[in-house]
């Protein structure tokens, strides 16, 4: 293990109070905890109308007719819109493939698809009016899995496809296919002493963000519209909204409003276009808020997956080869499916060195709910499978599962199956060593605790199902690899505008980006960066809107890296301007202006030796320095469509987990006692936020392991669209999560940082399932693990 390396001269202003590396508190933290934070659903406008969406009750049907007359006749109704009312020729939208109808046209392809819109003066009026819209459906056969999707007579979800994947996919119901070939699998397979294979299934997880989809569209006098919205990427929304409205982008002014979580579920549009259409039609502000039920239909989910894997190893524990096939169910519309395929295939090998691989990943079009981005994005599904395989191999070889993984762990310099070299620290073996070395929580504490024994610490918790009977402990390990940033040649830039001026006798920096703060803490980090780079105390974060250039998406663990990098970059340029100004004004007073390395510290221009040359207030003297600049990370390349070769990724993020579970083996109930995580973060810009992200991601992974699943019937209907039946972990399900943070700098990244938000979501799930396997001896090839799986019922 190499020592921690920090690139030289990565920053200035190391003494700035509240700068990077400090756990400054979030400006929105207290407000959110006390319930005072204004979310997008809290917005109000005088005279506003309420929008409501009529949705399809069927998963696949032809629309014969829509009769809106009764709805329109209802008092209080201002508008009812259907496909026929769309104002331009652009009637579809989509992140990558524009296949999603703004409103259904002649056909619905999934349960809950938007069919018509109503605006009324009261939400209940809008709801009732929608119920009066008469839609005549003729149900069509449903495509719900690979077999039905690829059958000879399978109905085509999108006949006549002309998207950029249409030409290379094996079937029109395949959104995208990515093979990756490297080495000689047949030869490597022949060297293997043991070969294990398995089929694995990952259920459909939901982002389950707490703030439902909501926003407010206000028509403007210039014929445009102002949209206040909770989203993950303002400019991506704008690109999709404006053409449908027939407005130039500058007439659709978007402002981020309070976002109640995202996790990928706000990458696609939900009510954005709908609210704008209704506002422009009625000339009144229109608010749309989904309730919880509707929210489950209002955003895409994590792709459910079926994965087949084969690995081989020599008897001394070296991996020989890997073959895998990953089938992702993309549902009715493409959303982020192509990129999820890219991730699932290119990261399918995990954080291991395997030279000979045959990989194939596909995403299907089906009539199931559309699936797209969710924290972990294709890497989650693969990690569950390859980590199960690692345990199987270790067991087959009679080796310790952690030692087996360490023996095969990738490191800096490893060549990935895509031919890309891992060119920054990859401390996989070290992370595994660290979690293994952590002390284990005490066993059967309910027996030793005496009077203070608490049933809540046992499987079943408050439900009082066991007092220790049938309870067996298991310990499991897992490690994963996630890419950071947008991959495959995407121009993944961000923009930051920074203004430095004197206000009330004090230098103040204003940081303006379009970054969506979805709870990740970006606004905290931006202020820290500005303090560090400009040596000021006062930093104002301007509300995020489209009056500044794109910040890219708050996803792919990228915002601190890319928009943080953009803020740093613009601050550096502002600093240069300050120094230019200082040289012009005061250069003649002190030779150091010309000769020394100059820094901004504590509101002053100082030499690197610490000598004060001037006050920032004097240098600026009424002038404001105001710059807006784009910033890019290293470019990436597309993967070759046949071989999968290409430098597709920017950076990687690694986390490892050890799960300690107690399983009531008779009732099949699980209590996760502890879920320890070790993660390399490159550089912790805000250590408190880093630990929070790791704990949150870990918990979301636990949810997938033991409870979180959208259950879809064979008729492709969603069966549990509520928090009553879509269960997410409560605090009683959330274990202690000790976190060990490594900081091995990536010299290519700002401050050496590594995107951290997703990696902990990957390995958490397989670690928990591995621990349950250890406790029960069961194979458990599917998540979430249900009591039925543990009891054979």
């Amino acid at each position: 293990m190499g020592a921690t390396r920090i690139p030289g001269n990565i920053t200035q202003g190391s003494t700035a109070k509240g700068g990077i590396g400090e756990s400054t508190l979030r400006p929105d933290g207290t407000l959110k905890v006390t319930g005072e934070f204004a979310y997008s659903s809290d917005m109000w406008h005088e005279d506003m109308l309420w929008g409501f969406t009529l949705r399809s009750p069927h998963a696949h049907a032809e629309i014969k007719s829509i009769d809106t007359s009764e709805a329109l006749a209802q008092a209080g109704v201002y508008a009812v819109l259907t496909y026929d009312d769309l104002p331009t020729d652009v009637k579809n939208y989509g992140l990558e493939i524009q296949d999603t109808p703004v409103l259904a046209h002649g056909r619905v392809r999934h349960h809950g698809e938007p069919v018509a819109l109503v605006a009324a003066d009261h939400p209940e009026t809008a709801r009732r009016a929608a119920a009066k819209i008469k839609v005549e459906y003729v149900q069509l056969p449903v495509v719900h899995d690979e077999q039905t999707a690829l059958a000879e007579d399978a109905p085509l979800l999108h006949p006549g496809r002309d998207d950029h994947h249409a030409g290379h996919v094996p079937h029109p119901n395949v959104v995208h296919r990515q093979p990756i070939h490297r080495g000689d699998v047949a030869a490597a397979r022949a060297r293997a002493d043991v070969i294990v294979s398995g089929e694995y299934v990952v259920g459909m997880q939901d982002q389950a963000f707490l703030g439902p989809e909501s926003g407010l569209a206000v028509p403007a006098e210039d014929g445009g519209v102002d949209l206040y919205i909770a989203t993950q990427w303002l400019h991506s929304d704008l690109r999709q909204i404006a053409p449908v409205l027939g407005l130039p982008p500058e007439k659709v002014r978007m402002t981020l409003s309070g976002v109640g979580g995202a996790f990928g579920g706000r990458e696609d549009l939900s009510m954005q276009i709908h609210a704008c259409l209704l506002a422009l039609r009625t000339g009144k502000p229109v608010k749309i808020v989904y309730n919880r039920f509707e929210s489950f239909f209002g955003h895409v989910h994590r792709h459910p997956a079926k994965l087949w894997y084969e690995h081989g190893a020599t008897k001394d524990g070296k991996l020989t080869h890997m073959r895998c096939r990953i089938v992702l169910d993309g549902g009715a519309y493409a959303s982020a499916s192509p990129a999820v395929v890219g991730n699932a295939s290119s990261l399918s090998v995990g954080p291991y060195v395997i030279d000979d691989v045959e990989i194939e990943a596909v995403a299907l079009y089906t009539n199931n709910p559309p699936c797209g981005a969710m924290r972990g994005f294709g890497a989650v599904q693969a990690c569950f499978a390859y980590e199960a395989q690692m345990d199987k191999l270790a067991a087959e070889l009679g080796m310790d599962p952690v030692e087996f993984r360490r023996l095969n762990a990738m490191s800096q310099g490893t060549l990935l199956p895509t031919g890309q070299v891992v060119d920054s620290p990859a401390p996989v073996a070290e992370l595994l060593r660290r979690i293994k070395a952590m002390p284990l929580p005490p066993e059967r504490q309910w027996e030793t605790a005496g009077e203070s024994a608490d049933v809540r610490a046992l499987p079943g918790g408050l439900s009082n199902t066991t007092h220790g009977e049938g309870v067996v402990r298991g310990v499991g390990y897992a490690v994963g690899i996630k890419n950071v940033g947008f991959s495959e040649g995407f121009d993944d830039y961000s923009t930051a505008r920074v203004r430095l001026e004197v206000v009330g006798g004090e230098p103040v920096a204003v940081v303006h980006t379009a970054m969506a703060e979805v709870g990740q803490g970006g606004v905290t980090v931006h202020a820290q960066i500005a303090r560090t780079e400009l040596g000021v105390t006062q930093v104002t974060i301007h509300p995020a809107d489209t009056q500044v250039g794109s910040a890219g998406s708050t996803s792919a663990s990228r915002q601190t890296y890319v928009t943080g990098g953009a803020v740093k970059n613009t601050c550096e340029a502002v600093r240069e301007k300050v120094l230019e100004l200082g040289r012009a004004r005061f250069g003649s007073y002190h030779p150091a202006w010309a000769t020394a390395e100059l820094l901004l510290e504590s509101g002053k221009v100082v030499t690197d030796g610490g000598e004060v040359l001037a006050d920032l207030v004097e240098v600026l003297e009424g002038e404001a320095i105001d710059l807006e600049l784009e910033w890019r990370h290293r470019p990436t390349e597309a993967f070759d469509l046949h071989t999968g070769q290409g430098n597709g990724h920017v950076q990687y993020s690694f986390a490892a987990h050890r799960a300690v579970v107690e399983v009531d083996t008779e009732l099949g109930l699980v209590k996760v006692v502890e879920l320890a995580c070790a993660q390399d973060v490159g550089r912790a810009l805000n250590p408190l936020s880093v630990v929070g992200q790791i704990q949150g991601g870990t918990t979301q992974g636990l949810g997938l392991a033991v409870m979180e699943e959208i259950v879809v019937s064979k008729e492709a209907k969603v069966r549990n669209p509520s928090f009553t039946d879509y269960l997410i972990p409560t605090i009683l399900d959330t274990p202690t999560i000790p976190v060990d943070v490594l900081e091995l700098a990536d010299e290519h990244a700002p401050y050496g940082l590594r995107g951290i938000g997703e990696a902990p979501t990957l390995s958490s799930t397989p670690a928990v399932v591995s621990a349950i396997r250890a406790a029960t001896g069961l194979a458990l090839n599917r998540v979430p693990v249900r009591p039925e799986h543990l009891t054979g019922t």
Partner: protein
Amino acid sequence: MDFLRPASWEEALAAKAEHPTAVPIAGGTDVMVEINFDHRRPDVLLDLNRIGELQEWEVGEETVRLGASVPYTRIIERLRGELPGLALAGHTVGSPQIRNRGSVGGNLGAASPAGDSHPALLAAGAEVEAVSVRGTRMIPVEEFYTGVKRNCLEADELIRAVHIKKADGPQQFSKVGTRNAMVIAVCAFGLALHPETRTVKTGIGSAAPTPIRARAAEEFLNAALEEAGLWDNGRIIPPSVARQFAELVSGAANPIDDVRGSAAYRRHALGVMARRTLGWTWDEYRGNERSARCA
């Protein structure tokens, strides 16, 4: 929708007589969910929150008369000794916020087979005090449930109170959910020992169209305990007896497959809970007997 807010019990009865379709609402933990989900849109809501007596309880010689709106939190805090099974069931209801609002009256009114209090009421023995302008009738809880989310209340009747037998022996309650808190029962089981009558009573939740007692299991166990003199000698229950009891409990259920769990799992889990709760209550009974003898 009309929202009626009677100031007294008599006014409430009059309102219910006048508006037989009125849906009573107290804590709102069930009714409001149904309204929000648009599962029902009652013409009239009858708000019982101004009627203070519904929040009160009386501990009598034999029974506790529990006002229909007494929240679970109060039962857990104040009636743990008299109604241990119901207090344990109350612990498993929703979240602290829900337990502050939800009540046994609401559970009975909704009559969901998954209601947490039903197995405890069945095992302890209880009667529902149903009142209308026509008068009062006492309905044994076993007869109260008539189908999925249906009970035997007349359209003009309101639940005023539940009369629950005070515990004369150990009671237990167990519930399976796929989460460690805040979860609707996949299935639930209540068990009460009644040393005074030398009987055992049970309650099964969420595993049949209505909450039910496992009568065959009770009869078998009553006979087995009697035959072996176990009530007197305080010996452990032979494992074969516990097993048979558990099987009969499983067999009493008539569960379905649904999104929360399979029928097969529900039967299996009921058997496990029956065996465990019998062990816990019997251990406690033996412990009590021993200390009573020593004293």
